[in-house]
């Protein structure tokens, strides 16, 4: 028998995601499931493949989760509207990408969300287009389980306090020091691989 699940309210979802731990995981999954039908709508609307839409939708859900945990979501609209807007923008980006030469498109570190002076933004963007994200991904995989988990948790938007709880560090400060050490190690591995290549 298929069990029907009641849709969670915005406040339940937000509280659950902010609570952290297993409740956060459950609420993340529920958020994804609750508006999953948007994928099908976007497939028709934007003429994108289901896989592209699913990818954009997952990305949008993750962005919403990040905004919720960092309090960027101010509650001026409903969660569905907020998610829909982000998802819509991601679909439009994909359509743009598809209509240009794929090879020439920058691999994708977006600085749009960061508050930076224009020149600084351009300087950083130039540095990043030269880099090799695939190589960095490979080095991340070889970093060791604990360090990798820590970097992934940071990438997912967890605070040092949450990382400390999750990975059983004594304090947030200890977790932060360990995280920065892991990033240093990753940077060294990455630089070494790059110099070997060139």
């Amino acid at each position, binding site marked *: 028998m298929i069990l029907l*699940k009641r849709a969670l309210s915005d406040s339940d979802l937000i509280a659950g995601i902010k609570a952290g731990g297993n409740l956060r995981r459950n609420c993340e999954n529920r958020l994804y499931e609750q508006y999953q039908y948007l994928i099908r709508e976007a497939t028709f609307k934007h003429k994108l493949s289901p896989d592209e839409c699913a990818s954009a939708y997952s990305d949008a859900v993750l962005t919403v989760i990040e905004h919720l945990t960092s309090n960027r979501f101010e509650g001026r609209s409903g969660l569905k509207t907020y998610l829909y807007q982000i998802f819509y923008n991601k679909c439009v980006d994909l359509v743009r990408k598809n209509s240009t030469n794929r090879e020439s498109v920058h691999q994708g570190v977006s600085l749009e969300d*960061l508050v930076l002076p224009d020149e600084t933004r351009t300087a*950083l963007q130039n540095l990043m287009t030269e880099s090799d994200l695939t190589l960095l991904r490979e080095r991340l995989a070889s970093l060791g389980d604990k360090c990798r988990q820590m970097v992934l948790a940071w990438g*997912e938007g967890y605070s040092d306090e949450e990382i400390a709880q999750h990975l059983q560090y004594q304090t947030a400060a200890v977790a932060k020091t360990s995280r920065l050490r892991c990033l240093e190690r990753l940077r060294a591995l990455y630089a070494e691989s790059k110099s070997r290549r060139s």
Partner: protein
Amino acid sequence: MNELEQVDRFFQGEMPETERRKFAEALKTDPELASAAAFYLQARHVARQEVLAEKRKQWEGQPPRPVVQRSWIGYAAGLAAVLLVVLGLWFWRMQEPSRRELADAYVSQELQTLGTAMSSRSDTLQQGIGLYNQGKLPQAAQLFDAWLVQHATDSDAQRLAGLTALRQKHYDQAIEHFQHLSRRADLYANPGPFYEALARIQRNRPEDAEAVESLLKRVVQEGLPGKAEAVEWMK
């Protein structure tokens, strides 16, 4: 403090505004610092992409579960369905005859006339049955009662007197006759309990309900006359 620590403080929003402005300027002029910042952002991007890939695998791997949207239409439909079922049950119950109606029907169909075939009966009883069948119930009752004064152990007379009282709606009297009959242990098939139940159903006093249940149960369990009706009425 090394470069990555500074970069982290900058992007985590931990720098005061003046320091923040200075740092943003330094990013334009200090290649080492800019390289650290670029790495920091790339690492975060790659980590995020990795998380996203894992999440996608997890989210898209599970079959979509239907989600019920909480809307007033859903609640209204649910309420309407419940009401419909309740009304249906009520209507169905209304259609079902009550035990009282079944008993009344039994009396008017089965006890309207009595058999006269038994040749061993006395003339008085035969005469009483004749009067009963003609609807002359008081006269019939008079004869049966008179007979019982002389023949108190006559089970047939007890039954006839009880039925006559029942037809006259003299329920207390009828119950008394049927109880006498019920106490008889020498009868092959004792109709006393069933008739008593019948009289009590028609009398319909609060104390009768429990007694009726127990009498009908006894009729069914002991296979006494009226068992088929008792089974039906116990439903």
